[in-house]
């Protein structure tokens, strides 16, 4: 019967007796070379990552840039729409202030019945430059209280000033009723 002492002896000399399964199993030069290559590749990848943001971040930046470009495109197209034909002096205040209260150039000289106060809102819907480039037709919505009224305003630009030429009621999305 194999004694405990014999097992101790065998275990004590274990390092000197390589298991048959491990004979010939070496961390060869090929393996070492492969490790070197992998490390070099990973270090390169890390350098690239450090130089350029991650793909995810890049996508975010690209998206942000695209959104910014889109924003400026929309802005410029709107500006182009408003400024095309020249009446920028008129169009600019409208575009920059969607909420216009007590606009004097709308009230005079036609005495447009705009109510003064916080419930008065005039929103430009569309700016159509006139063919000769010295005027514009502006569709607006005039909100008084709960009711909305549609109007059109014909402006004429001369010597840097915009003069209302005509102001019409019952302007709808289907067409203008110019009878005033």
């Amino acid at each position: 019967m194999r004694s405990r002492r014999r097992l101790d002896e065998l275990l004590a000399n274990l390092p000197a007796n390589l298991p048959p399964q491990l004979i010939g199993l070496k961390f060869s030069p090929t393996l070492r070379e492969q490790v070197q290559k992998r490390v070099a590749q990973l270090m390169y990848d890390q350098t690239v990552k450090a130089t350029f943001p991650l793909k995810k971040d890049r996508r975010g930046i690209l998206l942000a840039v695209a959104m910014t470009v889109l924003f400026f495109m929309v802005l410029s197209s709107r500006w182009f729409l408003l400024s095309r034909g020249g009446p920028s002096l008129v169009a600019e205040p409208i575009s920059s202030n969607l909420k216009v209260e007590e606009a004097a150039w709308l009230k005079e000289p036609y005495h447009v019945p705009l109510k003064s106060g916080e419930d008065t809102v005039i929103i430009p819907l569309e700016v159509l430059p006139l063919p000769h480039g010295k005027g514009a037709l502006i569709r607006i919505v005039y909100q008084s209280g709960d009711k909305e009224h549609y109007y059109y305003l014909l402006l004429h630009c001369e010597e840097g000033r915009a003069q209302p030429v005509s102001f019409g009621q019952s302007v709808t999305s289907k067409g203008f009723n110019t009878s005033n």
Partner: protein
Amino acid sequence: MMKNEQMEDLMRRFGDKVLHLAYSYLGDRHLAEDVAQEVFVRVFLNLNQFQGKSSLFTWIYQITVNLCRDHLRSQKRCRLKPTWEVPRYNVDVEDVVLTEMEYQELWQAIFNLPVAYREVIWLHYYDQLELKEIAHILGISLSAVKIRLYRARQQLQKALQEGENRYEISQAAGRIASQPAR
């Protein structure tokens, strides 16, 4: 960053040890080579994180053990079946003395141990590490190492005893078979 010469030196010093330890877990040469490579890649990439609380060798062994355990978990092979690779070399049976046969038997018994026992036997007897060091590498307490060693030795003794009994039975059967029929 570590220079190529330093990396080479480190691999030369610890490469075989790491490879053998990986094999003791995985029981497959190719897998052991893959894991050993991964160990050194991680060592080189994370060397700046090595805090020097233990020896470099202990740290490398810790990485090896963790990678092997991960691999075993992923393979759901917490206990290797006794289908270890047959050595590629040819053993001349006539030259194998009794002690060598005993060692072959012992190694087979070690490889058949559950991982938890095999790893402490390997680290303590084959790599001759101190119990404290083993506890650090395996991430277990010192008392847990002692208990595992004790139980591992019990299992080894039992396995060897069973082997010896089988041998004696086969010897007796051989003697009976060789006796002339009356």
